[in-house]
């Protein structure tokens, strides 16, 4: 018994460069994948696996073609959607790039195309999560004057909010740490640096991101208390609307929110 055609699965590391290389490989080798898997994931049975090795040269060629075919906004949409870290995004994104390369005119506004719509919606979700982080980051002032915040976003949006906070608090020192992905950005002397900590670091022993009394600035507790008081005082009891409250301020973010901590 023979297979009519061999089926290919591409293994790649979910970076933009690898994806573009995958597109190049697909056309060069005439092998179009039926699925993508991440690095180290187990391939399904009865398929051949093609390992995509990110290659600047190949990716660059695809990218320059994309630049000709799509607007800058659409390119941002493609690159940012990857921050969602969604395995189900691989195929639509791959097909989007292929279609864009093939098409004579830009396909970016064809929202009747399921791939374009899916990638665009994923991008929107990433943008929403980014906005939420811009809203819900809560800094605590430490004894040495650094502002510290712990977050746990749904998507890997920390790199996307760093420029915002660098512009906003350009004179301060601050650290925003993504607990789930175990890295953070430390900003000092007008320069953000990506930082990671050992597994034994004290930062992993802060269950709700709250610094202990001894690590905090002397006035920190007072300002937290003031903020909680304000949060309670500003609510109009006659208009209580818990459903809307939870919709705008989802419960999963409460853990790190000063006003929701007790």
């Amino acid at each position: 018994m023979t297979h009519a055609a061999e089926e290919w699965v591409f293994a790649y590391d979910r970076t933009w460069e690898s994806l573009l290389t995958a597109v190049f490989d697909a056309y060069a080798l005439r092998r179009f994948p039926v699925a993508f898997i991440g690095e180290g994931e187990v391939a399904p049975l009865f398929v051949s696996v093609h390992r995509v090795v990110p290659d600047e040269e190949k990716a660059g060629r695809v990218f320059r073609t994309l630049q000709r075919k799509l607007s800058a906004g659409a390119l941002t949409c493609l690159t940012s959607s990857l921050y969602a870290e969604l395995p189900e995004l691989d195929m639509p994104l791959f097909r989007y790039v292929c279609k864009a390369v093939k098409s004579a005119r830009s396909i970016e506004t064809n929202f009747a195309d399921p791939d374009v719509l899916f990638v665009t919606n994923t991008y929107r979700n990433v943008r929403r999560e980014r906005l939420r982080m811009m809203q819900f980051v809560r800094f605590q002032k430490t004894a040495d004057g650094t502002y510290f915040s712990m977050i746990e976003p749904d998507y890997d949006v920390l790199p996307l909010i760093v420029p915002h906070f660098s512009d906003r608090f350009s004179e301060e020192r601050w650290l925003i740490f993504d607990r789930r992905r175990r890295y953070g950005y430390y900003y000092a002397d007008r320069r953000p640096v990506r930082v990671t900590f050992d597994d034994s670091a004290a930062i992993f022993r802060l269950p709700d991101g709250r610094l202990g009394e001894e690590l905090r600035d002397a006035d920190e507790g007072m300002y937290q208390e003031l903020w909680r008081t304000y949060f309670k005082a500003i609510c109009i009891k006659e208009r209580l609307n818990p459903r809307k409250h939870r919709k705008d301020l989802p419960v999963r973010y409460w853990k790190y929110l000063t006003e929701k901590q007790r």
Partner: protein
Amino acid sequence: MKEDTLRKLKILAESAKYDVSCSSSGTVRRGTKGGVGNTVGGVGICHSFAEDGRCISLLKVMLTNYCIYDCAYCINRRGNDIPRATLSVSELVELTMEFYKRNYIEGLFLSSGVVRNPDYTMERLVRVAKDLRTVHRFNGYIHLKSIPGASRELVNEAGLYADRMSVNIEIPNESSLKLLAPEKDHASVYRPMGYIQQGALESAEERKKHRHAPRFVPAGQSTQMIVGATGESDRDILSLSSALYGRPTMRRVYYSGYVAVNTYDPRLPALKLPPLVRENRLYQADWLMRFYQFRVEEIVDEAHPDLDLEVDPKLAWALRHPEQFPVDINRADYEMILRVPGIGVKSARLIVCSRRFGRLTGFDLKKMGCVMKRAQYFITCGELEAKGVNELHPEGVRSLLVRPKGRPKQPDGQLSFVFKEEPV
């Protein structure tokens, strides 16, 4: 300082909370070297949401809640026996800076009761803004209330520091205002509005000549009207809003459902709950005027002076005008697609972009986010003929869309199991 500031903040936030405005939109300002903060523009950033569902973007607080006026609708009226407090300028400035650096807030919304006279009060408000901008080099958002009756010089100075200014109309009808607030009149509201408008226009003109000329209230002005405290119809309210939006620099009109704060006053209605549905409908109508290209006469007219509480104003308009439908999604103008109930600005844009590539079907519309439950009666999209508003008649569509009363909706977040009888 702690106990005292805590007490004051509580009192003054509670006094300020009936002001609706909270937006931090309209200005884009990058951070500066040596300064603190920036403003992002767009829709602004809401940092938190209170349990009444309203967003907390700015530190909304009064400088003082002492007041020489006795307006019937206001919690802070002279005759009320409530705790009073005054924040000093330095206290408030420090509070704002510390909150801002912890990313609690986007900036400051500052209002005040009137003490001594309008100019004295206004001067103190301006001092807070000036301190923030010049001493602390604060680049965040500042929304200043202009005190009715304040002089032009002070308004002009305030405009240099504030992103947005506002004067509240409160009561849309002058005679009702006279009844509830005998010491106020509309002229004292419109005068500062005029100052702000003029200042902004002059600055815009100036900036055409010199790129670095100072900006004046770059995010424009807003105002607020109380709904349900007096007998105005929605038509009165919306006509006034429409006229206000016609003025340059007027960005937002807020509607505040009257919360019965002064129940003892016989001039006011004794409402158990604020008119929340009416308020919501007014906002929807406001959106129709600002983003959906509706004129106020189309939303409310002599025959329908009040908005329909059962259905939203756009659907109400569509039901009154079945002759405009069905709209062919693949051919109609953007303006007409916007008027279809269930299709918003976002989906309308997606539709207009996508239909260049091929015919759209109901399935595509659904995936793009159109609410087909409402839209299906008002559109055709080259599929099998379905029954539209003309076949079913407006009353029929209405009864299909309005949820019958008495059948409560399934409570959210509750698992439910439905067992169907399987045919054996």
